[in-house]
């Protein structure tokens, strides 16, 4: 009996002494320093890092898109052409093109290297809120969502929309292409996420994911297309197994709406919110690995896939980098 008590006390002492050390080690791993890289003239609504992690694009209420060098931490060029706030941007999988969606109801395609506007895709009948380029080698398709409640798929070679997906009952907010090119996910003010086939002839949703209790603002596949993360107006993140659609985890992540989340290559999720914080989550356990108070409302987040740099699009117009400290 005495021996058992002694062992139990030793175990408790171990926990008390070493657990904080372990936690400190973990938090030391994820220590970031924030720098401001540049500024738009108005709120930054989206940021998107390219495939080879060298460039990030940002778009803004000021109706422009800017492309930044991540290693040089400087602005490369400004793209102008939209006739309204630019709500969303996405690099193509081959990093040659950029798609953007705007309140002017158009989707535009840009040459990343020259900054030239290549095409204006018109067809939505309300502001375009989300765009996502296909990430396969051909990079032929762009998916877009709009307050007109539809999801549209555009063939950029034809310069036309090739299918319109209907099913959401409220405005659609954001859209994501799976990295394996098989699926499109869209989320909506109707509190659902719909999964669609990229096959041109299939127009009915494959499934509808239910579980959010507030408008769903974003959704995103991980690099293996096996997980889908979604976030909502009440600061909740949900993680879904794909392609089964099974809900794996719900995280009450932030105090305010989460407009954007992103995956790292090791399947951590980075979230940013109007509550001014950026957080990193372990998608397997739901544990919070890092919280960074930026002091500014954040609309959008993306990252270099190894988490060495996190890029923030902020409500004060700034584009900020969180740089991992060694």
């Amino acid at each position, binding site marked *: 009996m005495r021996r058992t008590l002694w062992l139990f006390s030793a175990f408790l002492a171990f926990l008390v002494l070493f657990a904080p050390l372990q936690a400190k080690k973990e938090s030391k791993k994820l220590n970031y320093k924030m720098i401001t890289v540049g500024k738009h003239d108005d709120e930054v*609504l*989206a940021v998107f890092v390219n495939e080879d992690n060298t460039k990030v694009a940002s778009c803004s*209420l000021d109706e422009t898109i800017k492309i930044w060098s991540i290693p040089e931490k400087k602005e490369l060029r400004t793209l102008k052409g939209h*006739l*309204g*706030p630019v*709500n969303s941007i996405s690099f193509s999988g081959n990093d040659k093109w950029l798609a953007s969606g705007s*309140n*002017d*109801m158009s989707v535009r395609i840009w040459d990343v290297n020259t900054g030239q506007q290549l095409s204006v895709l018109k*067809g939505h*009948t*309300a*502001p375009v*809120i989300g765009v996502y380029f296909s990430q396969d080698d051909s990079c032929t398709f762009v998916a877009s969502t709009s*307050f*007109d409640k*539809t999801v*549209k798929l555009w*063939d950029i*070679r*034809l*310069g*036309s*929309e*090739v*299918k*319109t997906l*209907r099913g959401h009952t409220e405005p659609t*907010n954001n859209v994501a292409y799976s990295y394996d090119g098989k699926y499109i996910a869209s989320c909506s003010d109707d509190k659902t996420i719909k999964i669609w086939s990229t096959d*041109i002839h299939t127009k009915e949703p494959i499934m509808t994911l239910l579980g959010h209790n507030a*408008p769903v*603002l974003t959704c995103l596949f991980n690099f293996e297309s096996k997980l889908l993360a979604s976030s909502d*107006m009440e600061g909740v993140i949900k993680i879904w197994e794909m392609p089964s659609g099974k809900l794996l985890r719900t995280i009450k992540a932030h105090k*305010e*709406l989460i*407009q954007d989340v992103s995956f790292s290559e090791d399947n951590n999720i980075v979230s940013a919110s*109007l509550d001014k914080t950026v957080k990193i989550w372990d998608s397997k356990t739901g544990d919070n690995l890092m919280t960074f108070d930026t002091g500014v409302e954040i*609309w959008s987040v993306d990252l270099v896939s190894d988490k060495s740099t996190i890029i923030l699009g902020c409500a004060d117009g700034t584009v900020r980098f969180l740089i991992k400290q060694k």
Partner: protein
Amino acid sequence: MKSMKKLIFILILIVSYTFGTQVSSAQLVKAVIAVTGNIFDAVTKEPVTALLIIQDENGKKVNQTRSNSAENGLYYIPSLSPGKKYFITVNKPNYFTDKFEIQLANSDKYNEISRDFLIKPKDKGVKIPVPVPPFEANRSKLRYGAAELLESFTNTLKSNPDVKFQIQCYPDNTLDKNKNQTITDERCKAIMDYFVSSGIDASRISLKGSSTTDPKNPPPTQKAAKGKRYIGPTYIVVVDF
């Protein structure tokens, strides 16, 4: 022997001709584009049944079809040629007749493209929203690109010279009623000046600015997600025709 050679030659000719015809037919069958989509009411966003007349760029009628409100306003136009421009005129009683341009891409295979159209109801008192506000927040000058944003209304009003209409503008906030009245009056005037410069008779136009926000589409009272920044709505109201 000579007649045998002749027979073989004729057979080769027949086979070549048949094969060649099949290939060119196959190419013809492949090289078409179909356009499909839905027709909705621009105010209610409800699907409508309407007549669609398709003309080529020389004005020659090439096809005619109907949308079906029972199938969410679905229409289907087959057999259009890649690389060509077409005009689709949408007709429905009690609606303005609207003409939409479609430029088809070059393609060597069959493609189906999608395009939705909104048509404007023609009823006295109906308020048709301008889908993208042609102003920046708290400004009364027409923004850069406003001509593109107002193009559909300019075309409708030019092709319906019997219609008298009113421009109605609502403010962006509830802060200062006097300032709001000034801004919305100026916004109405800016749109009227644009229409007049586009060839629409000023006598057809009346103006109504508002000091208070739109009761049917008020500004948000709490933090909104992106894309929902509020700019006071602009309407074109059908007064008489």
